[in-house]
Protein backbone atom coordinates (compact mmCIF):
# COMPACT_ATOMS: atom_id res chain seq x y z
CA UNK A 1 0.00 0.00 0.00
CA UNK A 2 1.29 3.45 -0.89
CA UNK A 3 2.24 5.75 1.97
CA UNK A 4 0.09 8.81 2.61
CA UNK A 5 1.49 12.21 1.66
CA UNK A 6 1.75 13.02 5.37
CA UNK A 7 3.89 9.90 5.97
CA UNK A 8 6.05 10.62 2.93
CA UNK A 9 6.71 14.13 4.22
CA UNK A 10 7.39 13.15 7.82
CA UNK A 11 9.73 10.26 7.06
CA UNK A 12 11.30 11.58 3.87
CA UNK A 13 13.54 14.17 5.42
CA UNK A 14 14.90 12.09 8.28
CA UNK A 15 18.69 11.75 7.99
CA UNK A 16 18.56 13.48 4.67
CA UNK A 17 21.15 15.88 3.34
CA UNK A 18 18.34 17.89 1.74
CA UNK A 19 17.83 19.94 4.88
CA UNK A 20 21.40 21.12 5.17
CA UNK A 21 21.41 24.88 4.72
CA UNK A 22 23.28 26.19 1.71
CA UNK A 23 26.30 28.36 2.28
CA UNK A 24 25.34 31.99 2.70
CA UNK A 25 27.85 34.25 1.01
CA UNK A 26 28.14 37.95 1.53
CA UNK A 27 24.56 38.09 2.75
CA UNK A 28 25.03 41.40 4.50
CA UNK A 29 25.86 43.16 1.22
CA UNK A 30 23.32 41.27 -0.85
CA UNK A 31 20.89 43.22 -3.02
CA UNK A 32 17.32 42.24 -2.44
CA UNK A 33 15.37 40.64 -5.28
CA UNK A 34 12.05 41.22 -3.63
CA UNK A 35 9.36 42.94 -5.70
CA UNK A 36 8.51 45.49 -2.99
CA UNK A 37 12.18 46.23 -2.29
CA UNK A 38 12.81 46.68 -6.01
CA UNK A 39 10.09 49.31 -6.20
CA UNK A 40 11.51 50.96 -3.09
CA UNK A 41 15.00 51.23 -4.55
CA UNK A 42 13.58 52.34 -7.89
CA UNK A 43 11.65 55.15 -6.20
CA UNK A 44 14.65 56.19 -4.12
CA UNK A 45 16.89 56.30 -7.20
CA UNK A 46 14.27 58.22 -9.18
CA UNK A 47 13.97 60.79 -6.43
CA UNK A 48 17.70 61.45 -6.41
CA UNK A 49 17.77 61.70 -10.22
CA UNK A 50 14.82 64.13 -10.33
CA UNK A 51 16.30 66.25 -7.54
CA UNK A 52 19.59 66.41 -9.44
CA UNK A 53 17.70 67.30 -12.63
CA UNK A 54 15.77 70.04 -10.77
CA UNK A 55 19.03 71.66 -9.70
CA UNK A 56 20.81 71.30 -13.04
CA UNK A 57 17.92 72.27 -15.32
CA UNK A 58 16.77 75.08 -13.02
CA UNK A 59 20.27 76.57 -12.90
CA UNK A 60 20.91 76.07 -16.61
CA UNK A 61 17.66 77.74 -17.65
CA UNK A 62 18.33 80.62 -15.24
CA UNK A 63 21.87 80.93 -16.64
CA UNK A 64 20.63 81.33 -20.23
CA UNK A 65 18.47 84.26 -19.15
CA UNK A 66 15.17 82.79 -17.96
CA UNK A 67 15.47 82.63 -14.16
CA UNK A 68 11.70 82.70 -13.65
CA UNK A 69 11.17 79.71 -15.97
CA UNK A 70 14.16 77.98 -14.33
CA UNK A 71 12.58 78.47 -10.92
CA UNK A 72 9.23 77.11 -12.14
CA UNK A 73 10.86 74.01 -13.66
CA UNK A 74 12.90 73.44 -10.50
CA UNK A 75 9.74 73.83 -8.39
CA UNK A 76 7.80 71.40 -10.59
CA UNK A 77 10.55 68.79 -10.39
CA UNK A 78 10.86 69.31 -6.64
CA UNK A 79 7.11 68.71 -6.39
CA UNK A 80 7.65 65.43 -8.21
CA UNK A 81 10.34 64.51 -5.69
CA UNK A 82 7.97 65.28 -2.82
CA UNK A 83 5.27 63.07 -4.30
CA UNK A 84 7.86 60.32 -4.72
CA UNK A 85 9.01 60.81 -1.13
CA UNK A 86 5.42 60.38 0.09
CA UNK A 87 4.98 57.20 -1.94
CA UNK A 88 8.31 55.87 -0.71
CA UNK A 89 7.29 56.46 2.91
CA UNK A 90 4.06 54.55 2.37
CA UNK A 91 5.91 51.74 0.59
CA UNK A 92 8.51 51.36 3.32
CA UNK A 93 5.70 50.77 5.83
CA UNK A 94 4.66 47.58 4.05
CA UNK A 95 6.11 44.96 6.30
CA UNK A 96 7.05 41.47 5.25
CA UNK A 97 6.16 39.99 8.62
CA UNK A 98 2.42 40.34 8.21
CA UNK A 99 0.17 37.70 6.71
CA UNK A 100 0.65 37.00 3.02
CA UNK A 101 -2.78 38.37 2.17
CA UNK A 102 -2.20 41.63 4.06
CA UNK A 103 1.27 41.98 2.59
CA UNK A 104 0.18 41.43 -1.01
CA UNK A 105 -2.99 43.46 -0.57
CA UNK A 106 -1.15 46.43 0.93
CA UNK A 107 1.38 46.37 -1.88
CA UNK A 108 -1.38 46.09 -4.48
CA UNK A 109 -3.21 49.09 -2.99
CA UNK A 110 0.04 51.07 -2.89
CA UNK A 111 0.81 50.15 -6.50
CA UNK A 112 -2.65 51.14 -7.73
CA UNK A 113 -2.46 54.46 -5.87
CA UNK A 114 1.06 55.21 -7.07
CA UNK A 115 0.18 54.45 -10.71
CA UNK A 116 -3.03 56.51 -10.48
CA UNK A 117 -1.21 59.45 -8.86
CA UNK A 118 1.63 59.47 -11.37
CA UNK A 119 -0.79 59.08 -14.28
CA UNK A 120 -2.58 62.22 -13.08
CA UNK A 121 0.69 64.05 -12.54
CA UNK A 122 2.08 63.22 -15.98
CA UNK A 123 -1.22 64.25 -17.56
CA UNK A 124 -0.33 67.83 -16.49
CA UNK A 125 3.43 67.74 -15.93
CA UNK A 126 4.64 67.27 -19.50
CA UNK A 127 2.18 69.74 -21.09
CA UNK A 128 2.91 72.35 -18.42
CA UNK A 129 6.66 71.91 -18.86
CA UNK A 130 6.34 72.17 -22.63
CA UNK A 131 3.97 75.16 -22.50
CA UNK A 132 6.12 77.11 -20.03
CA UNK A 133 9.34 76.51 -21.95
CA UNK A 134 7.96 77.19 -25.43
CA UNK A 135 5.86 80.20 -24.36
CA UNK A 136 8.96 81.74 -22.78
CA UNK A 137 11.12 80.85 -25.77
CA UNK A 138 8.58 82.43 -28.13
CA UNK A 139 9.50 85.83 -26.63
CA UNK A 140 13.23 85.42 -27.28
CA UNK A 141 14.86 87.40 -30.08
CA UNK A 142 15.77 84.31 -32.07
CA UNK A 143 12.21 82.95 -31.88
CA UNK A 144 10.67 86.30 -32.82
CA UNK A 145 12.97 86.34 -35.86
CA UNK A 146 11.74 82.94 -37.00
CA UNK A 147 8.11 83.79 -36.19
CA UNK A 148 8.38 87.01 -38.18
CA UNK A 149 9.54 85.05 -41.22
CA UNK A 150 6.56 82.72 -40.72
CA UNK A 151 4.24 85.72 -40.39
CA UNK A 152 3.23 84.64 -36.89
CA UNK A 153 3.73 87.91 -35.01
CA UNK A 154 1.10 90.51 -34.22
CA UNK A 155 1.27 94.25 -34.88
CA UNK A 156 3.32 94.74 -31.68
CA UNK A 157 5.98 92.34 -32.93
CA UNK A 158 4.99 89.74 -30.35
CA UNK A 159 3.98 86.09 -31.01
CA UNK A 160 0.49 85.93 -32.50
CA UNK A 161 -2.52 84.00 -31.19
CA UNK A 162 -1.70 81.16 -33.63
CA UNK A 163 1.57 80.52 -31.80
CA UNK A 164 -0.28 80.11 -28.50
CA UNK A 165 -2.93 77.97 -30.18
CA UNK A 166 -0.23 75.62 -31.53
CA UNK A 167 1.49 75.49 -28.11
CA UNK A 168 -1.89 74.77 -26.51
CA UNK A 169 -2.69 72.01 -28.99
CA UNK A 170 0.69 70.32 -28.58
CA UNK A 171 0.32 70.60 -24.78
CA UNK A 172 -3.07 68.94 -24.99
CA UNK A 173 -1.64 66.08 -27.05
CA UNK A 174 1.24 65.76 -24.58
CA UNK A 175 -1.28 65.62 -21.72
CA UNK A 176 -3.08 62.66 -23.25
CA UNK A 177 0.12 61.02 -24.45
CA UNK A 178 2.02 61.64 -21.19
CA UNK A 179 -0.44 59.62 -19.13
CA UNK A 180 -0.57 56.89 -21.77
CA UNK A 181 3.21 56.75 -22.11
CA UNK A 182 3.57 56.42 -18.34
CA UNK A 183 1.01 53.59 -18.18
CA UNK A 184 2.59 51.86 -21.18
CA UNK A 185 6.00 52.18 -19.54
CA UNK A 186 4.80 50.63 -16.29
CA UNK A 187 3.02 47.87 -18.20
CA UNK A 188 6.10 47.15 -20.28
CA UNK A 189 8.46 46.90 -17.31
CA UNK A 190 6.22 45.46 -14.59
CA UNK A 191 3.11 44.33 -16.49
CA UNK A 192 3.62 40.62 -15.99
CA UNK A 193 4.45 41.04 -12.27
CA UNK A 194 1.39 43.21 -11.70
CA UNK A 195 -0.78 40.67 -13.53
CA UNK A 196 0.54 37.82 -11.42
CA UNK A 197 0.18 39.82 -8.23
CA UNK A 198 -3.48 40.48 -9.07
CA UNK A 199 -4.01 36.80 -9.89
CA UNK A 200 -2.45 35.77 -6.56
CA UNK A 201 -4.62 38.23 -4.69
CA UNK A 202 -7.77 37.18 -6.50
CA UNK A 203 -7.12 33.57 -5.59
CA UNK A 204 -6.62 34.54 -1.94
CA UNK A 205 -9.72 36.72 -1.93
CA UNK A 206 -11.78 33.88 -3.37
CA UNK A 207 -10.38 31.58 -0.71
CA UNK A 208 -11.29 34.04 2.04
CA UNK A 209 -14.84 34.27 0.73
CA UNK A 210 -15.46 30.56 0.09
Amino acid at each position, binding site marked *: MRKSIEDIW*QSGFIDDMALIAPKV*NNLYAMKS*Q*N*LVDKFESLFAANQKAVLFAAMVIGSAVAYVGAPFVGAIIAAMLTGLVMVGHGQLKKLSKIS*KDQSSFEYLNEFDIWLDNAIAQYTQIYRFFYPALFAICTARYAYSDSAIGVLTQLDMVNSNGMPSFTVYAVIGLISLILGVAGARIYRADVTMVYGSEIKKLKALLNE*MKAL*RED
Partner: protein
Amino acid sequence: MGSDFYTTQILPYAGIIIKICRAYTNNQEDFEDYYQEVCLQIWRSHERFNHNCAWTTWIYKIAFNVCLTYLKRQTRSPLTFTSDPLPEQVMSDIQFVQDESVRYLYKAIHQLSEIDRALILLYLEQQSNQVIAEILGLTANNIGVRISRIKHRLNKLLHNLET
Protein backbone atom coordinates in the same frame (compact mmCIF):
# COMPACT_ATOMS: atom_id res chain seq x y z
CA MET B 1 24.51 39.92 8.57
CA GLY B 2 25.69 39.36 12.07
CA SER B 3 26.87 35.76 11.98
CA ASP B 4 25.63 35.25 15.55
CA PHE B 5 22.14 36.18 14.51
CA TYR B 6 22.26 33.80 11.56
CA THR B 7 23.65 30.98 13.69
CA THR B 8 21.27 31.38 16.58
CA GLN B 9 18.07 32.73 15.07
CA ILE B 10 17.97 31.41 11.52
CA LEU B 11 20.09 28.29 11.20
CA PRO B 12 18.06 26.26 13.73
CA TYR B 13 15.01 26.92 11.55
CA ALA B 14 16.78 26.46 8.21
CA GLY B 15 14.74 23.30 7.56
CA ILE B 16 11.55 25.37 7.38
CA ILE B 17 13.10 27.85 4.96
CA ILE B 18 14.65 25.12 2.83
CA LYS B 19 11.40 23.19 2.45
CA ILE B 20 9.52 26.35 1.43
CA CYS B 21 12.18 27.62 -0.97
CA ARG B 22 12.37 24.19 -2.62
CA ALA B 23 8.65 24.33 -3.30
CA TYR B 24 8.99 27.62 -5.16
CA THR B 25 12.16 26.91 -7.13
CA ASN B 26 13.19 24.31 -9.65
CA ASN B 27 16.94 24.36 -9.61
CA GLN B 28 19.78 24.67 -7.13
CA GLU B 29 20.83 28.17 -8.19
CA ASP B 30 17.35 29.63 -7.75
CA PHE B 31 16.92 27.75 -4.50
CA GLU B 32 20.09 29.28 -3.06
CA ASP B 33 19.00 32.75 -4.20
CA TYR B 34 15.60 32.35 -2.54
CA TYR B 35 17.16 30.95 0.62
CA GLN B 36 19.54 33.89 0.90
CA GLU B 37 16.75 36.36 0.23
CA VAL B 38 14.60 34.86 3.00
CA CYS B 39 17.56 35.01 5.41
CA LEU B 40 18.24 38.60 4.39
CA GLN B 41 14.63 39.63 4.96
CA ILE B 42 14.49 37.85 8.33
CA TRP B 43 17.58 39.75 9.41
CA ARG B 44 16.26 43.05 8.07
CA SER B 45 12.90 42.66 9.79
CA HIS B 46 13.88 40.94 13.01
CA GLU B 47 13.68 44.12 15.10
CA ARG B 48 9.98 44.25 14.31
CA PHE B 49 9.39 40.85 15.89
CA ASN B 50 7.19 41.62 18.89
CA HIS B 51 6.53 38.14 20.32
CA ASN B 52 2.85 38.29 19.34
CA CYS B 53 3.40 35.00 17.57
CA ALA B 54 5.95 32.21 17.72
CA TRP B 55 9.32 32.83 16.05
CA THR B 56 8.61 29.91 13.70
CA THR B 57 5.26 31.45 12.65
CA TRP B 58 7.09 34.69 11.98
CA ILE B 59 9.71 32.90 9.89
CA TYR B 60 6.96 31.18 7.90
CA LYS B 61 5.34 34.56 7.19
CA ILE B 62 8.55 36.11 5.91
CA ALA B 63 9.53 33.02 3.93
CA PHE B 64 6.20 32.81 2.11
CA ASN B 65 6.00 36.56 1.51
CA VAL B 66 9.50 36.54 0.06
CA CYS B 67 8.83 33.51 -2.14
CA LEU B 68 5.54 34.96 -3.40
CA THR B 69 7.15 38.23 -4.44
CA TYR B 70 10.63 37.20 -5.52
CA LEU B 71 11.92 38.57 -8.78
CA LYS B 72 14.16 36.23 -10.65
CA ARG B 73 17.38 37.71 -11.96
CA GLN B 74 17.38 37.62 -15.72
CA THR B 75 19.98 38.93 -18.08
CA ARG B 76 18.02 39.73 -21.23
CA SER B 77 14.42 40.45 -20.35
CA PRO B 78 12.97 42.52 -17.50
CA LEU B 79 12.73 40.95 -14.07
CA THR B 80 9.87 38.50 -13.75
CA PHE B 81 8.14 36.46 -11.11
CA THR B 82 9.13 32.83 -11.16
CA SER B 83 5.68 31.45 -10.57
CA ASP B 84 5.14 30.12 -14.07
CA PRO B 85 4.28 26.44 -14.26
CA LEU B 86 7.44 24.39 -14.38
CA PRO B 87 8.18 22.47 -17.53
CA GLU B 88 8.32 18.70 -17.14
CA GLN B 89 11.98 18.37 -18.08
CA VAL B 90 12.98 20.93 -15.47
CA MET B 91 10.88 19.32 -12.78
CA SER B 92 12.52 16.01 -13.44
CA ASP B 93 15.78 17.61 -12.29
CA ILE B 94 14.61 17.84 -8.70
CA GLN B 95 17.27 15.62 -7.19
CA PHE B 96 17.97 17.46 -3.98
CA VAL B 97 16.32 14.92 -1.75
CA GLN B 98 17.38 11.27 -1.61
CA ASP B 99 13.96 9.86 -0.81
CA GLU B 100 12.23 9.14 -4.09
CA SER B 101 8.76 9.51 -2.60
CA VAL B 102 9.55 13.03 -1.38
CA ARG B 103 10.95 13.83 -4.82
CA TYR B 104 7.70 12.79 -6.41
CA LEU B 105 5.77 14.71 -3.78
CA TYR B 106 7.78 17.87 -4.53
CA LYS B 107 7.17 17.40 -8.25
CA ALA B 108 3.47 17.18 -7.54
CA ILE B 109 3.58 20.22 -5.22
CA HIS B 110 5.29 22.21 -7.97
CA GLN B 111 2.24 21.70 -10.15
CA LEU B 112 -0.04 23.41 -7.65
CA SER B 113 -0.83 27.11 -7.60
CA GLU B 114 1.38 29.26 -5.36
CA ILE B 115 -1.26 29.60 -2.67
CA ASP B 116 -2.04 25.89 -2.71
CA ARG B 117 1.68 25.18 -2.36
CA ALA B 118 1.78 27.37 0.75
CA LEU B 119 -1.31 25.70 2.20
CA ILE B 120 -0.09 22.15 1.69
CA LEU B 121 3.42 22.90 2.95
CA LEU B 122 2.02 24.36 6.16
CA TYR B 123 -0.36 21.43 6.51
CA LEU B 124 2.48 18.92 5.99
CA GLU B 125 4.51 20.82 8.57
CA GLN B 126 1.66 20.06 10.97
CA GLN B 127 0.57 23.64 11.48
CA SER B 128 -2.99 24.06 12.74
CA ASN B 129 -5.64 25.67 10.53
CA GLN B 130 -5.56 28.64 12.90
CA VAL B 131 -1.83 29.16 12.42
CA ILE B 132 -2.11 28.61 8.66
CA ALA B 133 -4.84 31.26 8.58
CA GLU B 134 -2.61 33.62 10.56
CA ILE B 135 0.39 33.09 8.29
CA LEU B 136 -1.45 33.41 5.00
CA GLY B 137 -4.21 35.79 6.08
CA LEU B 138 -7.01 33.39 5.14
CA THR B 139 -10.11 32.25 6.98
CA ALA B 140 -9.49 29.22 9.18
CA ASN B 141 -12.91 27.74 8.34
CA ASN B 142 -12.11 27.52 4.64
CA ILE B 143 -8.66 26.06 5.04
CA GLY B 144 -9.71 22.51 5.96
CA VAL B 145 -11.89 22.12 2.87
CA ARG B 146 -9.23 23.57 0.59
CA ILE B 147 -6.54 21.32 2.03
CA SER B 148 -8.73 18.26 1.46
CA ARG B 149 -9.07 19.27 -2.18
CA ILE B 150 -5.34 19.87 -2.51
CA LYS B 151 -4.56 16.48 -0.94
CA HIS B 152 -6.95 14.81 -3.35
CA ARG B 153 -5.24 16.54 -6.27
CA LEU B 154 -1.78 15.73 -4.93
CA ASN B 155 -2.68 12.05 -4.62
CA LYS B 156 -3.86 12.05 -8.21
CA LEU B 157 -0.70 13.81 -9.37
CA LEU B 158 1.46 11.40 -7.36
CA HIS B 159 -0.34 8.45 -8.86
CA ASN B 160 0.28 9.82 -12.36
CA LEU B 161 3.93 10.53 -11.63
CA GLU B 162 4.59 7.10 -10.15
CA THR B 163 2.93 5.14 -12.96
